[in-house]
């Protein structure tokens, strides 16, 4: 049996083990809470992460593309991007998958049911996944920086405009001074 097939059979076991590892990146006192994913509304972090890991893993072994994987991997990264993780900690959980798979497939690896080559191919996939994770993470962070900047701008700009202290460039044809009056430095007629 090939690696892909074995991974398919052990999908739920692997997802569960992967999720357990991810939960360990949170404070120990919260693991009990995060692991209980029955109600997604009372535990959105745990439930969202658990669901995403399952979907991402399935996508990975069924050979899905980057653009198909992005929406699946986005939710947990989006969450970790606003939690108190460093950038590396926020995405590192992707790499956990390598060890998780080796651990869950210990017997098969020992029996050489799975070749080194197959394992290293799988590792490549995980590496690729981590790069996707990095892109998603940066996208989230950029969005947050943008919110920050807009926050300040919208607070002041709107007010200045409304109080007629600032005004936007008028549409061509509606200006009091024609927009092209200074085209040649204002000396067109001389």
């Amino acid at each position, binding site marked *: 049996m090939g690696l892909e097939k074995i991974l398919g059979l052990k999908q739920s076991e692997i997802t569960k083990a992967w999720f357990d590892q991810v939960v360990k990146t949170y404070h120990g006192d919260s693991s009990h809470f995060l692991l209980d994913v029955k109600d997604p509304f*009372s535990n*959105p972090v745990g439930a969202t992460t658990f669901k995403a890991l399952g979907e991402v893993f399935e996508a990975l072994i069924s050979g899905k593309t980057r653009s198909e994987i992005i929406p699946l991997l986005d939710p947990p990264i989006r969450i970790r991007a606003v*939690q*108190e993780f460093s950038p590396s900690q926020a995405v590192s959980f992707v790499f956990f998958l390598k060890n998780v798979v080796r651990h869950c497939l210990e017997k098969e690896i020992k029996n050489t049911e799975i070749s080194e080559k197959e394992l290293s191919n799988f590792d490549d996939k995980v590496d690729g996944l981590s790069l996707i994770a990095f892109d998603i993470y940066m996208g989230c962070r950029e969005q947050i920086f943008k919110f*920050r900047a807009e926050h300040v701008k919208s607070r002041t700009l709107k007010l200045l405009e409304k109080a007629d202290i600032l005004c936007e460039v008028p549409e061509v044809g509606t200006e009091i001074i024609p927009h092209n009056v200074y085209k040649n430095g204002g000396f067109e007629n001389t």
Partner: protein
Amino acid sequence: MDIKPEEMIKINTKPPAKHWMDIPADLSEGKFCYPAKAKSLEYLHLPNPRDWSPADEDWKLPENWQQIIHEGFKERLDKYRSLKVFMDVCVRCGACADKCHFYIGSGDPKNMPVLRAELLRSIYRNDFTTLGKIFGRLAGARKLTPLVIKEWFSYFYQCTECRRCSVFCPYGIDTAEITMMARELLNLIGVNIHWIKDPVSNCSRTGNHLGIQPQNFKEIIEFFCEDIEEITGVAINPSFNRKGAEVLFVTPSGDAFADPGTYTFMGYLMLFEHIGLDYTLSTYASEGGNFGLFTSSDMMKKLNAKMYHEAKRLGVKYIIGGECGHMWRVINQYMDTMNGPADFLDVPKSPITGTVFENAASTKMIHIAEFTADLIKHNKLKLDPKRNDHLKVTWHDSCNTARAMGLLDEPRHVLNAVCNNVFEMPPSTTREYTFCCGSGSGTNTEEIMEQRLRGGLPRANAVKYVHDKYGVNMLGCVCAIDRAVLPPLMNYWVPGVEVTGLHELVGNALVMDGEIERTMNLRMEDLPGAEGDSDE
């Protein structure tokens, strides 16, 4: 701690398993609200004005800061019986532990309400109980050190005073009140945040949080009237500071300057015009919000009094308040004992329906959602909800209106009359159980955007559910802070969902006397099918 590259992907259980008392708060840049400027504190005559940063090692506390805290604590224990009870009765059953949106979103145990309260309680035990004095840490007590002050600053500003936890506590312990006390104590030694202190000082000076001058406030409203005329063909001339009007209308200043609150303001103006209400706006009491609530009871009292002074000066009969959250917490929970009862005003009575609002018999102030719901119930408004048919709306109960005044059904009554497509979020996330926007109680500042986004996750997660399931594209609310903070929250977690106030929807559905055929909504966006939709 330095590590080798190969150790980078080892699970880094953080923070190391230590007792919570031994884990200092992280106050690196980006993890805290900026402190109040010395200037604001001086203006408000508040203690210890200075320039400092929470990232600094030395916070420049007054020399006798421990004594100040101890005495301030004692004074409050004597003054508020509830505080003493809250300090004593918690049995650490844990029912509240996983109910706080900040805990849910962060997984940080110090955001469990029970532990948040312990931050203060541990000092209470040390200073005021025999057991704590003798057994110290064994009895859950600890000494007051500068690290404790830093921890308080961090975690009591990671509480939005939303009171969700109190709904689940069998003893009714209200962690929001504990947070309020902790913030008061911090204020005594000059530890406070600019996002609260600036609005408070502005409000005491110009009458609103933003410091909009009276003439500009008036201009902004007139600007709304121009837009309304363009959209509806109806000219509106609201009065300002008019003596003898029947009603004084006060709304948060956020409605005057920040979208989408501005559209809600337009909705108020249209409604009042339509029913011919005899009302006036004030350029002096131009703020319904009260950031004093997030500071100290004295400050809250001062800012609240301003509205009532103005009502008295103008000789109105009663006050209608706009769509605000925390203003109503102040009115319903504190106003009466603080500045009330407002004997010089009448019990609010709708001039249109004759309904007497006995619930406001003492405060003489009603929420516009109650007022409008009553109009609709008596069939006094001509409404065309079809104009909102392109919207699929879900309803966010704002913490303060929902949990502090029980305003749950009135906004829904209005909403269902003006919109045909309304979808509720799961019951464990609405009404009394509603999740906070994550940015309440004066924490809606941009430097802590991550905190706000993770605190708002439980709310957004429930919106995402109705967005995915029913195609919900609009989130309605009756709170100005919500209108300011929910748009980025939606943008981050549930793109495709916009935010609206209740009266924007009312304004859009309202069929005004003498109006032209509507082709635009209040945002000046084309109404879908406006031209072709003349089949009725």
